[in-house]
């Protein structure tokens, strides 16, 4: 039994989280924002830990995004 990516709503305060996420980028250049996102992804990935869940998340995030032809 492999762990599954939780996709039901789990955020206790979605609006607060969203605001915090956008606020975290306030005043940053494009490159700094990219760096922040990368650090955030690494921190959260480690928190999740389970590679199967992470692969599922990567696939879900990629879904529907087409490579330019």
């Amino acid at each position: 039994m492999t762990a599954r990516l939780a996709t039901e709503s789990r955020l206790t305060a979605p609006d607060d989280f969203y605001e915090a996420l956008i606020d975290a980028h306030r005043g940053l250049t494009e490159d700094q924002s990219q760096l922040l996102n990368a650090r955030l992804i690494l921190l959260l990935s480690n928190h999740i830990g389970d590679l199967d869940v992470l692969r599922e998340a990567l696939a879900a995030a990629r879904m529907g995004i087409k490579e330019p032809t």
Partner: protein
Amino acid sequence: MQSELFAYRKAPELASGQTGRYRVVVVGAGPVGLCIAIDLAQHGVDVLLVDEDDRASEGSRAICFSKRTLEILDRLGCGERAVRKGVVWNLGKVFLRDRLLYQFNLLPEAGHKRPAFINLQQYHLEQFLVERLLETRRVDLRWRNRVTALTAYADIVALTIQTPDGHYSVECDYLIAADGSRSPIRSMLGLEATGQVFRDRFLIADVKMEADFPIERWFWFDPPFHPNQSVLLHRQADNVWRIDFQLGWDADPEVERQPERVIPRIRAMLGETRPFTLEWVSVYTFRCQRMERFRHGRVFFLGDAAHQVSPFGARGANSGIQDADNLAWKLALVLEGVASDRLLDSYDAERVPAADENILNSTRSTDFITPKSKVSRTFRDAALQLAGTYPFARGLVNSGRLSVPHSYRESPLNSRDRDSFGGHLSPGAPALDVPLTGRDGPAWLIDQLGTRFVAVYYAGSHRAIPDALIEGLRSEPVAVEPVVVGGVDWSATGVPAEIPAFVDTHGLFAQRYDATPGAIYLFRPDQHLAARWRTLDLNAARSAVAHAACLRETAAAI
């Protein structure tokens, strides 16, 4: 001394005009070719070894030799010299800018004969190997002999060899191509190695200096003395230090190897006042690639000729020497007529996955050190920054995952476990070393294994061993030597003196092999585990030997 070892001599075929007839011809007298020639000689096989050059390698080239390689060199009779001349190290440090991010110990566990790594210039190793090879008196070593034509038939391989005194013809049963990454033999057969070229350049310098830096592998990301790039510092024998500077793809290799460009880079790193001399400089790019198969009928490809990796991880020469270790005993058993040709196919079955493992690790390291895209670079920088604060991120930092031997877990030569065993070891894995006490004092398990099949019997605290162990296995068409390990002083028991017997002084055999009294472990001539049982079952043991050696039907029936 050196010149005598590498002296050109006129081949006898040139005087006789006859076609030379050899069982095995090895092409390429680098570390890999030398190792397999020595190994075959130790198995009683006569070898012709040819090399187009007449000297050891120029510059240090391969410098990091792994524990597994040292165990193989021990079996070939030059491990001790290599370790004594080399620089022993276990510790690596990774820096970001001027700050230590973390350090790693590659051999955190005591009780192994050999360290995780030694650093030794390739030319020193080659000299030791040549000297050892000449001692065997079974290898005809010919410098400045270049293979210029090759025809592979079903039953022989025919070669034309060019020398300063003209050319001659040779036929052999088997040809071993250890002729490097640009393998002329590979081209002559119309074969290729395919893979990925990395768009980066590295400057590699051998610097001689007196320095009291600790004997550790130091790797910098973005150091102040070489911003935005990586640098590696590593000590070798004779106060020679290896320094690798990442240059980037746009660097001009011709310009960068000029001393007037190299010396300021080194001064920036070491300080203006430290005296040093520049011994060797090279600028290189690298690729990760391999041939689809390493066996082509009677021709075998080993080392860089078969597969190539980036230098980060020390997986080039080490994996090549493990190729030699894998093939030599198989070829010897087939030439003896006891093993079937299928045994030679297992070279591919075992070493192709080993090459893939090395390429995978090497590619991952290279993607970290030389990010191929902007987003890859961003993640790399993010991981490096986090690593300073959070231990989890240190696991992401990749400055080279250093060579560990491949376990032939899926090998067709393994016998599947019938009994259950704990721990990481599985059939196909290389032996784990253990300190023991023999009748004459301290000993190492690894030294009891190799070059022939060995059955290690764990007696626990029992004072006797089953007769079947000695009678039953020695009568195999392929002899299996028994070795006894247990908890008692074997000199005071009835175990015959000719049976090597050891005390498991620290209990590490029991621990590392999850051994219970009566358990038996069958090791191949390359020290890899072929099969194991909780109790001695002679039929099972015989069939495991027949299986691991691909014994021919007729031989097995005797």
